[in-house]
């Protein structure tokens, strides 16, 4: 039973992608959309029973072999699908969000001329992501890893006529290559050290390796530390952690459903998944874990600061994603992998909800993404408003400890803060404070988004998109700041996913917290489960438990003050702290720094290679040189062919003389 269903879950999306991609225009929009969406819903329906099996404790981990892949010397690995608790969690997240995003895209992409291509890419992405999470060896994981990277590239650049989209797609690909290099080195190193790429075998041997050393770049280093750091660099690239995060905000150039599926719920969490999957390895690598904690905490606060200043609704949510991924990483870094996975799980629902909600707003506002031109949308698009509201309540972590009730984010984020505090180490405490501060900022920018979008007076006429739609300019519109524009609620196909994800955002925490947080049997051997740490987590002081709640209220109050009560505050604040604001608004100048450090020198070097190396040497002495010789030879051949009989005879005689001379020598 499990065998059949896991094969169907993984390969139906592939089949749909192939049929849809190759069929494309031959089949037409509706057929391709039905095939891809239908197969995703089947995958989704098959995934939940597997997940439920692990929740209820009736299922056991299994490996379903598919095909032999490589047999070469002592390197051997197969295509196989591994199903355990960790995989099951990812399965439901991926298939559910993907199915809903497919459905949502029916409405969102309705006017696009290339719908079959879009849906085929979405399904292809889902297949690659499923291959990643079901991997039984590091190479198959890498296959999925690169597969999702490819799909992400294709989807970010889906509107390939837009130069910014192409640039963003290339940027995402290139930045991910940096991480991938780390991942690849990690895989190679793991194979050298353990002699296998099979994940279970590596994890079994990992604890015995702690303390072993290896020569790396001329230094003796702890084997496990160096391996885990390399692997974590891969995770940093894919999960957009500080330093390798620059591609994620730009990736918002892709269609919004893509942002929801790939750049919020699934692909970007692959790094967290990988760290959890390899948790026994990381447990044997204290330095690497410290790095995970630090990078996670730093990303969490760093991204949150930028989120408070951005105007583009999708970019705010993108930085929020980056920040939330930071939470997951430092949870993993302090050793609470179950908690990290729990936040991954709940985050998938509310972040996908926020993105799809934002997409619904954008859809309603004629492709305007700048929140400065929103306002007063609450009454116009009430269903979207409520969906966004649930998403915001979830991400800001609304919930009261003593009531034992709260939205999804409350359960997972508070658990992360508590476990970081409970860890008791200096780095854990640092992460806790960073997390609390980031929670304040999260609350602020989330409510800022809500207030700017749904409250206040309409500021629509300032938007060029709206002007284009109503054929009016701000001057021509007079007092009416709506410009006569009527935002329209999205079609049912877009509202249904919002509804389903709202349920997730509201209940996912409440329902699944006992299993994810406390149940060692639930996780089984799929991750490293530290029961003592979880006990300590529950025993933290009340001020810790309420800290997130308090800062959430503070953030809400701040946002209310600045964007509802007195809308002049943000302007004054910016004037007061001009340099700080500019620094944060420009994303800490990371892009400029990288441009200066890497991009420009690379271009310079590339241009040198191109002009001197390629044109000056290879082309000149290669193809062009050969062509020149051929051209001269042709002229000579024509010249010799004079048409005179005597010269022909002469050449023959000379030929005989030359041949005789040669053989006599």
């Amino acid at each position: 039973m499990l065998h059949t269903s896991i094969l169907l879950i993984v390969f139906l999306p592939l089949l749909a992608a192939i049929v849809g991609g190759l069929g494309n225009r031959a089949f037409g929009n509706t057929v391709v959309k039905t095939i891809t969406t239908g197969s995703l819903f089947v995958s989704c329906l098959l995934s939940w029973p597997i997940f439920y099996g692990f929740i209820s404790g009736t299922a056991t981990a299994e490996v379903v072999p598919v095909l032999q892949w490589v047999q070469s010397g002592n390197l051997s690995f197969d295509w196989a699908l591994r199903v355990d608790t960790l995989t099951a969690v990812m399965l439901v997240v991926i298939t559910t969000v993907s199915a809903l995003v497919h459905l949502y895209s029916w409405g969102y992409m309705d006017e696009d001329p290339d719908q079959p291509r879009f849906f085929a890419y979405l399904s292809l992405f889902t297949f690659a992501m499923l291959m990643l999470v079901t991997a039984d060896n590091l190479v198959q994981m890498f296959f999925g890893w690169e597969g999702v990277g490819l799909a992400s590239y294709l989807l970010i650049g889906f509107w390939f006529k837009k130069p910014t989209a192409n640039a963003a797609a290339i940027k995402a690909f290139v930045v991910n290559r940096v991480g991938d290099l780390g991942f690849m080195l990690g895989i190679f190193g793991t194979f050298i050290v353990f002699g296998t790429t099979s994940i279970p075998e590596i994890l079994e041997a990992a604890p015995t390796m702690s303390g072993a050393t290896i020569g790396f770049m001329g230094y003796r280093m702890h084997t496990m530390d160096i391996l885990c750091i390399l692997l974590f660099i891969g995770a940093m690239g894919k999960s957009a952690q500080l330093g390798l995060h620059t591609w994620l905000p730009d990736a918002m150039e892709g269609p919004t459903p893509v942002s929801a599926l790939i750049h919020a719920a699934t692909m970007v969490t692959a790094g967290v998944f990988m760290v959890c999957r390899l948790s026994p390895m990381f447990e044997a690598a204290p330095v690497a874990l410290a790095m995970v904690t630090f990078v996670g905490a730093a990303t969490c606060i760093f991204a949150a600061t930028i989120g408070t200043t951005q105007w583009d609704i999708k970019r705010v949510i993108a930085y929020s994603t980056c920040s939330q991924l930071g939470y997951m990483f430092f949870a993993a870094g302090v050793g609470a992998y179950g908690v990290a996975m729990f936040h991954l799980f709940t985050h998938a629902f509310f972040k996908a909800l926020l993105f799809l909600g934002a997409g619904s707003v954008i859809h309603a506002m004629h492709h305007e993404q700048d929140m400065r031109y929103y306002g007063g949308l609450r009454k116009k698009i009430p269903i979207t408003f409520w969906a966004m509201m649930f998403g915001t309540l979830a991400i800001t972590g609304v919930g009261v400890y003593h009531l034992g009730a709260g939205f999804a984010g409350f359960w997972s984020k508070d658990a992360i803060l508590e476990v970081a505090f409970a860890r008791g180490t200096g780095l854990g405490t640092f992460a806790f404070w960073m997390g609390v501060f980031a929670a304040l900022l999260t609350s602020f920018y989330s409510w800022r988004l809500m207030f700017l979008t749904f409250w206040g007076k309409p500021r629509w006429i300032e938007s060029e998109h709206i002007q284009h739609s109503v054929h009016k300019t701000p001057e021509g519109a007079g007092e009416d700041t709506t410009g006569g524009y009527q935002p329209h609620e999205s079609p049912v196909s877009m509202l249904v996913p919002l509804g389903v994800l709202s349920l997730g955002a509201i209940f996912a925490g409440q329902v699944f917290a006992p299993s994810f947080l406390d149940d060692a049997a639930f996780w089984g051997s799929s991750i490293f489960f530290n029961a003592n740490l979880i006990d300590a987590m529950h025993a933290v002081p009340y001020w810790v438990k309420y800290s997130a709640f308090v800062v959430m209220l503070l953030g809400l109050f701040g946002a209310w003050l600045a964007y509802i009560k007195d809308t002049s505050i943000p302007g004054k604040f910016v004037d007061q702290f001009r340099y700080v604001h500019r620094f944060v608004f420009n994303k800490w100048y990371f892009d400029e720094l990288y441009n200066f450090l890497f991009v420009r020198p690379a271009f310079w070097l590339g241009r040198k290679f191109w002009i001197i190396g390629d044109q000056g040497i290879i082309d000149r002495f290669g193809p062009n040189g050969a062509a020149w010789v051929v051209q001269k030879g042709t002229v000579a051949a024509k010249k010799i062919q004079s048409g005179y009989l005597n010269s022909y005879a002469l050449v023959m005689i000379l030929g005989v003389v030359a041949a005789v001379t040669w053989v006599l020598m």
Partner: protein
Amino acid sequence: MDFLLSFQLSAPEIILAVAGLVLLMVAAFAGNKSAQTVTYLAIASLVAAGAVVVELFTNDALSQGADAWSGLYRMDAFGNFTKLLIYLATIGCLIVTPKFFDAKGEYRPEYPVLMIFGAVGMGIMVSAVDLMTLYIGLELSSLSSYVLASYSRSDERSAEAGLKYFVLGALASGILLYGMSLVYGFTGSTSYLGIRAALADGMGTGALFGVVFVLAGLAFKIAAVPFHMWTPDVYEGAPTPVTAFFATAPKVAAIAITMRIALDPFGAQSDAWQQIIIFAALASIVVGALGAIGQENIKRLLAYSSINNVGFILVGLAAATEAGAAAMLVYLAIYVAMSLGSFVAVLMLRDKDGNQVENISDIAGLSRSHGLLALCLAIMMLSLAGIPPLFGFWGKFVVFQAAVQADMIILAALGIAASVIGAFYYLKIVKIMYFDDPADVVEAKGETSRWVVLLVTTIFVSPLGYLLTPWLGDLAARAASAMFFVI
């Protein structure tokens, strides 16, 4: 001496010789009106001779071959294989010829008769195992060729071609005969067997001179560089059907005797001639390719193409192995089809007055007005360029494989590199036909007989040809082994 057996073994030549004489009588008495009839009868006699060859080829009792006429003539698999190719090429050329001269009213019955005598001469050449028989066969076919080249009496270019061919051919014959006399003088024998025995223990300077002169004379016949100068002028000037004939049947015969001379009587001293052949091979490939690039006349271009192809075939000879010889024969079979097909396609290019279209620029955009013709010509060109999966690739592949197996890796590498230059002008023709603006000069009219020849050759060089590789390879291997068969 068993006369009866000798008659039986040389039956193909005897049939053709008698047929030639009889048809000459018919032509003399019936006059020009009989031209069409004589053509049919000539084809019929070639088919009959071919049938006898097949019979001899498949006769198990004669599978090892047999000598006839006191060791002047030998019936063996090698001769049979090449004779079949020669007859098929001659038949193909005869089929497509008559229409060409219709416009000028020049088609006369001596044309097929000359072709028949040419075929007789070539048959004798490839079966000769004595220098004297060889020379008689060679001259018979050459004399027919000289006349054919100048066949269009009203056309100056044709007359010029015939004259040039004759004068240079006479010079080459002189060189060849001089070489033969030296070989005879220093070995004391004109028979291949005798020469081989005499050279088995080494070779003096005199004999070496002889070998070089013989090979030089033969190099003229196969149009290898530097004895190729006549080719472009003759191919361009001669009437197109005659050019098609030159590029196929006599080419097969000339290459066959070159192989046989080099590998059989001079086979024991392959070191002496290998370097000359290597040079001729590479020079032919390069000069053929370079020369072709500059051409604007398609017949001239095909002339250079044939020089280029001879270079590739000689790569197989340079290996001096049985595998190399078999590879050459495979290449020859494919080359004959490609060459015949290309010329037939060119024959079908007529402007609206019925004149031959020879300028490459005039076939621009041919794909739009005459799709199938353009397709066939394109397949021929791509196959000549050796682009897989067309059959021309296989020919090149086997000769280079033979060279590599004989440890001549540098020769193979240089040959392959030079074939890239060759690809240029073949692709240029395809590009002109398919991508240039139509010149709308060509008014090809469907002529069933030509279409049959063109389509048969096109299918042969198409990837379908690979179905024949086991059979063709087997025949070629048998033919090649006949030369290495030591009595």
